[in-house]
């Protein structure tokens, strides 16, 4: 990376805000998806929105690609650096700027962790609803980029339903306010364009979020089943009876064992467990619980345990939320897949996954947000066995095809990132992708903001869709085709 450019970067951030040492850069080469790696040319760690803006301006002027990164917990390589580009680490922008309880909203910087918001507002009986499993550490900026979900999204919606407004730096260095304090603003809904754009349209520097009052009653049921199929049928039956639980989670035997080894949630010895959480007014919860209980019994639940207090509930959730990382207890390496199928297709897709497991010789654990059909197959492999990592990747991608064939989606909440961009054409037509690409170009004509993510074949803006023709900038040797 050009020394003059580095000097300029160093001049616009506070002391200690520019990393160029090779060892320092080395630790930024991947997020939580470790098999994709690229070493950045520099990492900047701004402490204010102004610094972010100054850095983006410099990158824009010099034509250097940049990638925003929160705490590096993403599972799709969304914060994978561009080789020799700039990483804008937002970990130091970590202040909660305003807590407005009467209006039920908070304003935070992007490096604040998801759980910190709930911790800050819980003395007032409030919480922030989206709860990805990594909520203890994942950043709000990353949640906005990925439109993160979580166990409770079945009832409460995804991040997009909880962001009221953002301040963001556009790829040309302009600072913009999008959305506002009100629940619905007139005009084009640009906020929904930013949320879930995986860092390809802007760098969010401030966000105003909705918080919710804690429900009067919460009841968590942990039920064991003889098979995933029976548990899956129980889920369909519960929802079929008109109940929208706050969360319905399913885990299979392998992931139960892993969680047990890691955090001892004391799950029953079963081939599948369901965690069903009901919340709302006490009377409603009681009534719904009677239905859920009878459905589980009808599906032959082998055990049922009810958590009525916070400590017990936390123990159960700890088991579920640690499930991914806990795979490290039962397998040297694992690959987390994230796909969605219509709930009714769950049994069919699971059967295909089981066949694949037998065929591939790799163990596959399954954790689901069962209520909305979001699967998280965990493919176990041993990277020290030559070829096994690639094999696992193939197996993971085959599962994605099952999801798409079943009329689902190739990602529920982890994002497309660098990991799944190649599968986008399997889900979207060229026209669909071109339409998305035009939006991208409107924000980032130079293609500097997190390039190489989401889109399968990055095009230059201004390029006419269709057969490849050399762009004028390519001819001039200014840019090269990826």
């Amino acid at each position: 990376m050009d020394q003059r450019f580095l000097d300029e970067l160093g001049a616009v951030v506070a002391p200690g805000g520019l990393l160029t040492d090779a060892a320092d850069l080395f630790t930024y080469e991947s997020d939580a998806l470790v098999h994709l790696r690229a070493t950045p040319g520099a990492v900047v760690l701004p402490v204010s929105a102004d610094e972010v803006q100054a850095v983006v301006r410099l990158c824009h002027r010099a034509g250097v690609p940049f990638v925003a990164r929160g705490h590096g917990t993403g599972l799709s390589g969304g914060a994978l650096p561009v080789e020799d580009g700039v990483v804008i680490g937002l970990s130091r922008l970590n202040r909660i700027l305003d807590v407005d309880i009467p209006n039920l909203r908070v304003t935070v910087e992007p490096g604040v962790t998801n759980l910190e918001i709930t911790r800050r507002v819980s003395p007032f009986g409030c919480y922030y609803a989206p709860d990805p499993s990594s909520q203890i550490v994942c950043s709000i900026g990353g949640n906005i980029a990925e439109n993160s979900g979580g166990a409770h999204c079945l009832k409460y919606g995804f991040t997009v339903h909880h962001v009221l407004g953002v301040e963001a730096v556009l790829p040309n260095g302009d600072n913009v306010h999008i959305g506002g304090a009100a629940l619905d603003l007139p005009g084009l809904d640009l906020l929904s364009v930013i949320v879930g754009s995986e860092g390809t349209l802007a760098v969010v520097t401030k966000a105003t979020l909705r918080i919710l009052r804690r429900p009067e009653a919460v009841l968590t049921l942990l039920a064991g089943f003889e098979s995933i199929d029976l548990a899956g049928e129980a889920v369909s039956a519960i929802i079929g009876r008109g109940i929208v639980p706050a969360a319905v989670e399913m885990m299979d035997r392998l992931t139960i064992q892993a969680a047990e080894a890691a955090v001892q949630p004391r799950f029953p010895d079963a081939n599948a467990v369901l965690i069903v959480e009901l919340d709302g007014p006490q009377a409603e919860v009681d009534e719904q619980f009677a239905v859920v209980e009878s459905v589980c019994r009808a599906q032959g639940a082998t055990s049922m345990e009810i958590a009525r207090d916070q400590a017990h509930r936390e123990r159960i959730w700890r088991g579920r939320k640690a499930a991914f990382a806990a795979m490290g207890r039962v397998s040297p390496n694992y690959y987390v897949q994230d796909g969605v199928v219509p709930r009714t297709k769950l049994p069919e897709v699971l059967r295909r996954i089981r066949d694949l497991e037998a065929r591939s010789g790799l163990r596959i654990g399954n954790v689901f947000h069962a209520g909305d059909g979001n699967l998280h197959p965990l493919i176990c492999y041993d990277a020290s066995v030559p070829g096994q990592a690639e094999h696992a990747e193939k197996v993971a991608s085959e599962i994605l095809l099952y999801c798409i064939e079943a009329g689902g989606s190739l990602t529920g909440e982890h994002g497309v990132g660098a990991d799944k961009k190649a599968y986008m054409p399997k889900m979207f037509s060229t026209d669909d992708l071109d339409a998305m690409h035009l939006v991208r170009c409107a924000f980032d004509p130079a293609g500097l903001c997190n390039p190489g993510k989401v889109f399968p074949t990055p095009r230059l803006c201004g390029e006419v869709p269709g057969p490849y023709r050399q762009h004028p900038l390519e001819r001039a040797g200014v840019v090269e085709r990826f």
Partner: protein
Amino acid sequence: MDTQGSAFSSLAPLEPLMDKCVHCGFCLSTCPSYLLNGQEMDSPRGRIYLMRGGVQDRVAMSGTVVEHFDTCLGCMACETACPSGVRYAPLIEETRAAIERHHQRPLADRLFRRALFLILPYPRRLRLLAWPLATVHVLKRSPRVLAALPARIRHLIALAPQRPAGGPTAGDVPERTAAIGERRRRVGLVTGCVQRVFYGHVNQASARVLAAEGCEVTAPRRQGCCGALALHAGRDEDARQFARDLIRTFDGERWDSIVINAAGCGSTMKGYGELLKDDPAWAERARAFSSKVRDISETLSELLPPRAPRRQLPLRVGYHDACHLAHAQGVRAQPRRLLESIPGVTLVPLADAEICCGSAGIFNLVEPEMAAELGRRKIARLAEATPDVVVTSNPGCMLQMTTHARTAGHTFRIVHLAELLAESLTS
């Protein structure tokens, strides 16, 4: 300095431990150095990445890299947070030993560290230093003189306890304290270095409470340091020697348990078996010793309900988990059970309880700025709970928190668990 092999090569056998790390980042949320510095290299995940890079010859042991290992407080909160069960303690200890063998620190740094290790683990030398340290409080009132001193000395002065330990043997525990009533346990008491010099009254309170609950307490007069400070700073050979000496001191008697009231020492002593496993003459003795080591709260909670009558102490008590008790030894419930056994005590929850106070062995002496910031944050969280008393189980935490509570103008007392238990004894 050893120049054989690559600087990180001694970590190669530990690669399977590193491979357990799946890079999920859960450890970042409770890592004090990541919270302060907000950069990947100052997190457990980043450090493990650097270690692996070092073993694979992709990372050299440069000054920058060493700094990232130096910022680790060794609090082990990451081990608690890790869902994959990564054992970070052996990794950082071996890394530090490798640094000591292969990396030359700047001269001032070297001299300062050497001085610390010539004094801290030796109670008699430490006591000599404690007197001038206690009198330097006069200096605190002359900011101009203070400002002229090097930062490290300034912080050393700031941390000096208010009250000297008294005469040369003022804080000492009698060699034998008989059990009151029928004897239930025979315990050996490790009296520590910093604890003995600065908090002799904690040792005395410990012996009193143990005796009141039916323990016959023996505190061998000539015991030395447990080696914790050396081990945590990468001086593993020194640590092994301290360990052998201490084991020898406690040899020859049949203890039910060897009791310690300093969390940092306890976690090291419980690890003697591991520390000396490659020393054939000592491996078995070390294992036997370690199996008997108990934190005082473990021993006392085994003896609950209390035999000795307790009097009412109407206090709001915040219990601060010492990192080396909670994270390193998994002892969390026992001290709380003991505090709840005191009539009148209300335990109040503390925010950010899993975050280190910044003391961390010699960390607040070698990395004073970071330690001070952590101390300030810790005290702010403690104050929010409006306690009358904050109870903990480690002398380092007590020094650090007392300093920062005073600076911030708070009046709540900071005491050792044994002190509050002793206060509640009626006789």
